[in-house]
């Protein structure tokens, strides 16, 4: 086995283009589980967690955007200053695994794995994140909705790396919430991210763990935008209930070893209602 530990993006791209079948390793919190369980044999490994370009983030006030390098860890995302710019993603970060997992696990690893239960993904979907991919041949930018194509499937090609994501810094309340079998260290059985955009006067909602990909809820979003008072942060109880019903209707859950479809759909409604009420606390 060859383990390459590049220390610049150029070196990393050279490594993945010379070894297109190499496993790309960031924090290892998904990949090493597979290796330990012998579900995956690794021969060549390109370690990307010491590439400075991937470990950086950049806030651009002029365009009101935040670039997060793929190698930014959940520990970094859950704390200020990043948490202040993308609170929904920070809340999701705080629910990932345990401190040990968050110290190692990265945004890029969550995208690479692309589990429907990946906690980072609903906030990225609700924020309309752009995923930046890079290879020796050049770069391409893919909207998150096109990046994830199925459970643990995405458009990443061999020889390509995830460079990072760009997120809008939105003014308005945003949050993320999930249910699982316990409080700490739990995979979501259902999760919801909600972003209220006070300027565009829109409400964006994305669901995790209740479909093959992260699901947006166009009907619930449109309904909410028409019902809420952005200035007074007001929404009627009846509107919250209808919003919850529409969000639950957008879910495409399945029965599996973690939960039932019926419970997941119910949970989506509860979580969506909770988030909308937090965003617009006045009745």
């Amino acid at each position, binding site marked *: *086995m060859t*383990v390459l*530990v590049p220390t610049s993006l150029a070196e990393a791209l050279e490594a993945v283009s010379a070894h297109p079948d190499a496993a790309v*390793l960031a*924090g*290892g*919190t998904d990949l*090493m*589980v597979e*290796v*330990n*369980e012998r579900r995956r*044999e*690794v*021969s060549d*490994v390109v*370690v990307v*967690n010491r590439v400075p370009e991937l470990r950086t983030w950049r806030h651009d006030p002029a365009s009101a955007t935040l670039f997060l390098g793929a190698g930014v860890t959940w*520990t970094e995302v859950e704390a200020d200053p990043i948490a202040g710019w993308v609170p929904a993603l920070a809340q999701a970060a705080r629910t990932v*695994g*345990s*401190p*040990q*997992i968050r*110290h*190692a696990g990265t945004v890029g690893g969550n995208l690479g794995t692309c589990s429907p239960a990946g906690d980072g993904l609903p906030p990225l979907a609700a924020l309309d994140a752009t995923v930046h991919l890079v290879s020796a041949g050049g770069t391409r930018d893919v909207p998150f909705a096109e990046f994830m194509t199925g459970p643990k499937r995405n458009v990443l090609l061999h020889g390509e790396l995830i460079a990072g994501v760009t997120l809008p810094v939105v003014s308005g309340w945003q949050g993320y919430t999930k249910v699982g079998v316990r409080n*700490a*260290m739990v995979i979501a059985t259902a999760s919801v991210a909600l972003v209220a955009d006070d300027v565009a006067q829109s409400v964006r909602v994305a669901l995790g763990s209740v479909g093959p990909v992260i699901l947006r809820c166009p009907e619930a979003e449109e309904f909410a935008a028409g019902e809420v008072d952005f200035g007074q942060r007001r929404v009627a109880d009846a509107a919250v209930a209808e919003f919850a019903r529409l969000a639950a209707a957008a879910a495409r859950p399945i029965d599996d070893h973690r939960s039932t479809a019926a419970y997941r759909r119910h949970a989506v409604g509860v979580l969506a209602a909770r988030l909308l009420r937090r965003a617009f606390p006045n009745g």
Partner: protein
Amino acid sequence: MAEHYTLHVNGTAREVRDAGTGESLLFVLRERLGLMGTKGACEQGECGSCSVLVDGQLVCGCLVLAASAVGQRIVTIEGVAPVGAPTDVQQAFVDAGAVQCGFCTPGLIMATHSLLDRSPQPSELEIREELSGNICRCTGYGRIIEAVQRVAVARSTAAAGGPSA
């Protein structure tokens, strides 16, 4: 498939020879370097018994590809204090009765040092959250939390120039 590399463990350069494909840091520490203090149980990052510091970050040794840690500073439970001279955290675990079977203790000691370095006066909720990656099947956690609180109090008393407990 044989790999040779050097790891920096507890301040010492350690040669690893003829290592196999995909070996975790946990495996290499125990089976190749004879450092048995770091425990292995779940090997999927859930139990925290393999907690070590890599470049100052608390991580699960089972999820670190050993060969990827070349050039990084690794600290294991053997590196926190010399034998016979326990740290305040280790002593507090003994005093508070936070050690029963002892299997989770090395990981919890590493996690507690990491927590108190970052947050010297943690609330109980913070302690519970910060130690949520370390599973103990004996104590029910009450005495572990008490041990952490004892250290926090003793350190702040000492820092304020008061009597050390």
